[in-house]
C-alpha cells in the first residue's frame, strides 16, 4: 500500500499505465462482496458507439426532403419591434416558410412562475441575439441569404447593462412582471434571530465577493430536427439535443396548441450539456412550427455564436456575507446577501436565486441564518443553470470567507472546518435534512494526500496551497411544476431469450446515465449489464423522468430501476422456485442463472426462468418509480435546497503565481468526493475529474464578457476568445473517492457530477493568497486582477481586488422560520410572505 500512496500525484510524464499481473482486482478489497456489478469500473453501454463515431447526435440526422432553418436575431439589446417585413425573404427561391412572433404568440418558460419567453420575440427584443424571425429553406445557404432580406424596424430602448444598473434604473422595464422595476425576484428568509447570534460572537467578519458569469460551452452546438405527420395523425416529432425532453414536450404542446399525445420528443445523446440544454428553447419550437407549415422535416443547427446567445449559464453574482464566530471558530450566526444578473428572461432564475442562499448551512453548523437574494433582469442573454446551479457562487464566497476567518482566529483552515461539521442525520437551520455526511473523511484525505501540514504557510513566495470544501444536492426534492407524481419512472421487459430492456425517460448527456440503468438492473437480476438494452429519452416510448439536471438521475432513475427489477425478479423467482421445489428465499440471481444458494449447481439459466414465468403469467414486464421524500421545510421558498441526499467534496489546490505577470498556474489539485456509493467506478472518476476541470476554468479564465458600452454586445462569442482550459492549462489531479452510503441512494449512491466543481474556485483563491499575500475576491482570477491587488499591496493599501459595495435593495419583509432547535415546525411565522400561512394555520 505504501507504494500506491507514493503515487498520490501523477506528475507530468509519469506512468499512468500499470502492466503487472497483480493489478487491479475487479473491485477494491473494501467493497461488499455481495455486489457483483455495482462498484466495478465498467465501460459504458454506449462506449463502443461513441468511440466509433456511430452515436447519432441531433445534427447527424438527415431525413428525406429535409429543410434547413435559420433564425434572425436582434442586433439591439433592448428594442421595441415596430414592424417586420418578410415579403422579400419569402419570395427568395428555395425559401419555404418565414415565421415571426405573431405566428407563435403563446409564451413559455421552464418555470411556471416565469412563462416570459416567446419562440420569436413578438413585440420586444431583450438582448443582442434574441430571435425575431425564422426561415426554412432548401439549404442552409438559402436560409441564411433569406435572413438578410427580412426588414425589421426597431425602436431602441435604453438597455439595462448589469444588475447594479437594474437596481438603479427601474425603467424602462424589461418585463412587465417581477418584484418591481427591473428586479425579477426578491427573497428574504430568516431562520432565527441573527442579530442575537452576532451579539454572542467573539469575532464578526464581513466580506464582499463577486463571481463572474460563465457559460457551459458544450462541444456540440444545439440542434433539433422536426417532422410533422399531417392530420388525421396531426403529430409532431422533435429530435433535439436536450437534457429535458419532458419539459420540451410540455412546452411544445402548449405553444403549438397540440394535445400532448400529438407531440413526441426524442432527446438525442447530448454532445455535452452541463445545464445549457435544460430549458425549452425557441429554436426547438420554431423548427417544429416550420415543419407543420411546410409539411417537410426541418433541421436547425445553431452556430457557435448562437450557442453563446442561448447561454442560460452561470449568473454573475455579487455577494455580501457576514458571519459571527466564537474563538474556536464555531459559527453563531450568518447573514448572506446575493445579487444576480439574470439577463433578459426568467429561465431557471427564481430557483437559481434561491440556490445562492440554500446550501450555506449544509457543511458547517450555522445555528442562525439569514438570506436575502435578488435577481435582476438585464439586456443580455439569459442566465440559468450551469453545473452547480446557483451554488458555486455562494460556495466561493463562503469558503474564502471561512479562510479569512481562520486566519483571524489563527486556526488552520482545515482544522476549523473539521471542528464544526454538520452532523449526519440532522436538520439544518433552513430545514434541510442531511443524511450521510462524509466531508470529514474528505478533508482528512486531501490534507494527508497533499502534505497540507508541511505546505500551508510554509512554501516560498509565489507558491501556495489553498483548501475549500463543498456540498451539492443529489436531485431536487421538488419537481419544477408542482405535482404529486413520481420524478422518475422505469419500465422493464424481460425477453424470453434472456435479454432485458429498460425503458426510462432519462437523457444521456455523457454522464453515463444509460449505463447506470443497465448496471443496477444487472445487479438485481444477476445478468450481464451488456445483455441489457436501454431505451431512454423518448416521450412516446419511455415513462417520464424529469431530466438530466440537479444531479438527480443516478439516485432517482436508479431507485426506479431497482424497483422495476426487483418486481421482475419476484415474478421470475416465484416460478423458478416452484420448478426447483425450494422456497423463494433460497434463490439467488447471478451469472445469468437462477439457482439454489444451498446447492448452487442446482438451478436454471436466467432465460429458462423467464420462459417459465412467461408461460405461466404472460409477458414479463414491470414498472418502477421514484418520488423523493417530503421536505421538512414548509415555508415559501422551502422548495429549493431539499434533496434526498447531499454529496460532499474537499479540495486542496496548489498554485504558482508569477508576481511579475500576475499569471496563476495550478499544477495540481487533490480532490476527495463523498459519492455515497460508487455505481460505476470509472464514471465516478470521470465526473470528478471533469468537474475539477470546469471549476479550474471558472477559477482562472472563463467569463461571459460584454463590451463596456451601452451596446451590451457579447465580446467573445467564439471558442477561441472564450478562454477554457486546454491540455496545456489543465492540472494534474489526485482523486479520492469516499463512500459514505446514504439510505436514500440506490445502494447508497449520491451525486458526483456537479459537487466536485464547487471547491475549485475558492481553493485556488485561497492558494493565491498563500502564494503572494493578496486576496482576489472575484473569479476568474485573471493576471490583471492579481497585478492590481499586488500594486495596492505595494502602495500599502488593502492587498485585495474585489467588489467594494453591495447596493441598497428594497427587500420585502422577511419570512421568519424558527430553526428546528428553536422549536420550529418548518413553517413560517409572523410577517412577510409567511404570514398568510401563519394566519391559515392559526385558523385551523
Amino acid at each position: 500500500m505504501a507504494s500506491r500512496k507514493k503515487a498520490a500525484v501523477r506528475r507530468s510524464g509519469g506512468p499512468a499505465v500499470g502492466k503487472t499481473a497483480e493489478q487491479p482486482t475487479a473491485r477494491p478489497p473494501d467493497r461488499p462482496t455481495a455486489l457483483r456489478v455495482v462498484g466495478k469500473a465498467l465501460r459504458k453501454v454506449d462506449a463502443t458507439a461513441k468511440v466509433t463515431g456511430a452515436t447519432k447526435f441531433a445534427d447527424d440526422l438527415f431525413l428525406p426532403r429535409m429543410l434547413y432553418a435559420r433564425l434572425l436575431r436582434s442586433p439591439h439589446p433592448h428594442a421595441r419591434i415596430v414592424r417586420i417585413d418578410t415579403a422579400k425573404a419569402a419570395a427568395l427561391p428555395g425559401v419555404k416558410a418565414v415565421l415571426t412572433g405573431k405566428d407563435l404568440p403563446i409564451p413559455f418558460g421552464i418555470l411556471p412562475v416565469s412563462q416570459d419567453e416567446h419562440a420569436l420575440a413578438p413585440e420586444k427584443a431583450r438582448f443582442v441575439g434574441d430571435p425575431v424571425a425564422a426561415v426554412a429553406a432548401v439549404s442552409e445557404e438559402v436560409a441564411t441569404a433569406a435572413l438578410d432580406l427580412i426588414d425589421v424596424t426597431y425602436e431602441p430602448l435604453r438597455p439595462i447593462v448589469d444588475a447594479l444598473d437594474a437596481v438603479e434604473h427601474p425603467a424602462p422595464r424589461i418585463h412587465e412582471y417581477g418584484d418591481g422595476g427591473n428586479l425579477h425576484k426578491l427573497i428574504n428568509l430568516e431562520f432565527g434571530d441573527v442579530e442575537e447570534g452576532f451579539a454572542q460572537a467573539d469575532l464578526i467578519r464581513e466580506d464582499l465577493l463577486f463571481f463572474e458569469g460563465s457559460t457551459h460551452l458544450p462541444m456540440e452546438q444545439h440542434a433539433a430536427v422536426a417532422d410533422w405527420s399531417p392530420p388525421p395523425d396531426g403529430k409532431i416529432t422533435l429530435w433535439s439535443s436536450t437534457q429535458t425532453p419532458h419539459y420540451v414536450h410540455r412546452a411544445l404542446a402548449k405553444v403549438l396548441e397540440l394535445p400532448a399525445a400529438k407531440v413526441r420528443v426524442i432527446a438525442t445523446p447530448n454532445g455535452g450539456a452541463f445545464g445549457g440544454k435544460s430549458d425549452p428553447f425557441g429554436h426547438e419550437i420554431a423548427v417544429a412550427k416550420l415543419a407543420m407549415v411546410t409539411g417537410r422535416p426541418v433541421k436547425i443547427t445553431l452556430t457557435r455564436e448562437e450557442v453563446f446567445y442561448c447561454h442560460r449559464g452561470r449568473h454573475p453574482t455579487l455577494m455580501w456575507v457576514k458571519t459571527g464566530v466564537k474563538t474556536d471558530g464555531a459559527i453563531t450566526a450568518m447573514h448572506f446577501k446575493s445579487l444576480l444578473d439574470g439577463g433578459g428572461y426568467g429561465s431557471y432564475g427564481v430557483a437559481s436565486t434561491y440556490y445562492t442562499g440554500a446550501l450555506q448551512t449544509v457543511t458547517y453548523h450555522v445555528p442562525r441564518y439569514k438570506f436575502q437574494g435578488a435577481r435582476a433582469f438585464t439586456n443580455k442573454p439569459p442566465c440559468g443553470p450551469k453545473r452547480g446551479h446557483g451554488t458555486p457562487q455562494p460556495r466561493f464566497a463562503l469558503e474564502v470567507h471561512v479562510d479569512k476567518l481562520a486566519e483571524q482566529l489563527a486556526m488552520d483552515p482545515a482544522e476549523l472546518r473539521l471542528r464544526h461539521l454538520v452532523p449526519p442525520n440532522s436538520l439544518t437551520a433552513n430545514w434541510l435534512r442531511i443524511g450521510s455526511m462524509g466531508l470529514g473523511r474528505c478533508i482528512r484525505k486531501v490534507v494527508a494526500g497533499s502534505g497540507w501540514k508541511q505546505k500551508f504557510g510554509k512554501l516560498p513566495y509565489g507558491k501556495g496551497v489553498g483548501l475549500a470544501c463543498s456540498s451539492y444536492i443529489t436531485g431536487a426534492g421538488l419537481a419544477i411544476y408542482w405535482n404529486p407524481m413520481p420524478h422518475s419512472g422505469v419500465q422493464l421487459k424481460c425477453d424470453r431469450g434472456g435479454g432485458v430492456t429498460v425503458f426510462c425517460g432519462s437523457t444521456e448527456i455523457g454522464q453515463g446515465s444509460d449505463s447506470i440503468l443497465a448496471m443496477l438492473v444487472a445487479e438485481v437480476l444477476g445478468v450481464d449489464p451488456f445483455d441489457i438494452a436501454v431505451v431512454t429519452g423518448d416521450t412516446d416510448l419511455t415513462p417520464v423522468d424529469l431530466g438530466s439536471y440537479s444531479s438527480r438521475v443516478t439516485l432517482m432513475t436508479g431507485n426506479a430501476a431497482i424497483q422495476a427489477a426487483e418486481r421482475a425478479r419476484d415474478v421470475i423467482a416465484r416460478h423458478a422456485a416452484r420448478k426447483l421445489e425450494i422456497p423463494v428465499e433460497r434463490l439467488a440471481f447471478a451469472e445469468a442463472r437462477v439457482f439454489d444458494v444451498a446447492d448452487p449447481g442446482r438451478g436454471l439459466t436466467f432465460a429458462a426462468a423467464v420462459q417459465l414465468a412467461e408461460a405461466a403469467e404472460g409477458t414479463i414486464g414491470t414498472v418502477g418509480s421514484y418520488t423523493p421524500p417530503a421536505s421538512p421545510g414548509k415555508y415559501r421558498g422551502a422548495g429549493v435546497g431539499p434533496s434526498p441526499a447531499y454529496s460532499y467534496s474537499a479540495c486542496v489546490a496548489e498554485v504558482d503565481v508569477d508576481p511579475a505577470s500576475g499569471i496563476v498556474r495550478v499544477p495540481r489539485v487533490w480532490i476527495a468526493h463523498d459519492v455515497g456509493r460508487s455505481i460505476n467506478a470509472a464514471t465516478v472518476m470521470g465526473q470528478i475529474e471533469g468537474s475539477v476541470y470546469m471549476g479550474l476554468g471558472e477559477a482562472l479564465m472563463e467569463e461571459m464578457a460584454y463590451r463596456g458600452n451601452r451596446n451590451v454586445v457579447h465580446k467573445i462569442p467564439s471558442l477561441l476568445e472564450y478562454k477554457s482550459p486546454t491540455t496545456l492549462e489543465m492540472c494534474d489531479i489526485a482523486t479520492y473517492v469516499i463512500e459514505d452510503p446514504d439510505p436514500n441512494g440506490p445502494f447508497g449512491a449520491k451525486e458526483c457530477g456537479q459537487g466536485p466543481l464547487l471547491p475549485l474556485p475558492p481553493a485556488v483563491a485561497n492558494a493565491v493568497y498563500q502564494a503572494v499575500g493578496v486576496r482576489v475576491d472575484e473569479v476568474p482570477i485573471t493576471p490583471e486582477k492579481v497585478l492590481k491587488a499586488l500594486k495596492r499591496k505595494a502602495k500599502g493599501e488593502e492587498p485585495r481586488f474585489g467588489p467594494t459595495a453591495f447596493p441598497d435593495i428594497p427587500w420585502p419583509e422577511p419570512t421568519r422560520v424558527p430553526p428546528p432547535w428553536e422549536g420550529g415546525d418548518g413553517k413560517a411565522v409572523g410577517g412577510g410572505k409567511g404570514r398568510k400561512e401563519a394566519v391559515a394555520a392559526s385558523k385551523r
Partner: protein
Amino acid sequence: MPDAKTKIAFELNGEPVEVAFAPHKTLLEVLREDLALTGTKHGCELGECGTCTVLVDGKPMLSCLVLGLACAGHQVKTVEGMAAGGTLHPLQEAFAELGAAQCGYCTPAFLLAAEALLAESPRPTREEIKLALSGNLCRCTGYIKIYEAVELAAARMQGEDAKPAPETLYGLP
C-alpha cells in the same frame, strides 16, 4: 439554383471514392453531407476547437478549414476508418475502457489526433501527449482519462499486456 457540382476522387479510409459536391464545400461538409460519414463532428466551423479533426495523408487537419476540392488525390481518414475488420483500434478500445469518451462528441477528433501522434512517437511522454492534443477541446473529461487512454493504447500497441492502473479507475486509496 444549386451550385454546379464538381467531382473529385480521393482515398477515404483506405478505399477509393468519387464524390460530387458544390465546390465551396469544406471537407467537413463533404464528409458529413455528401458521403454520410457523420462521425466527424463540428464545434465551431472556424478552426478553433479541433472537433472536426481528420487525418489527411496521415496528418491531423481541421476538416472545417480544408476545402473538399483540395483533397483530390489525397488520403483521408475519419473515425469510421479506425476499427479494422470488426475490431476496435487499440485507441478506441482504451478510450472505451477508461471512459475517455463521456459525451463522445469530441472523441473522434481526439482519437485521430492521438493516432497521428502514436504514428510519430509510439511511446509518447505525458508532455508529448498534452502538446499533440492541445488543439482539441474537451469539456467533459478534464483530459485526464484521454491521456491515460493514449498511454494505455500506446503500451498495448507495443505488444505489452497493459492494464489500467487501479487509481485510474478507482481513485487513490
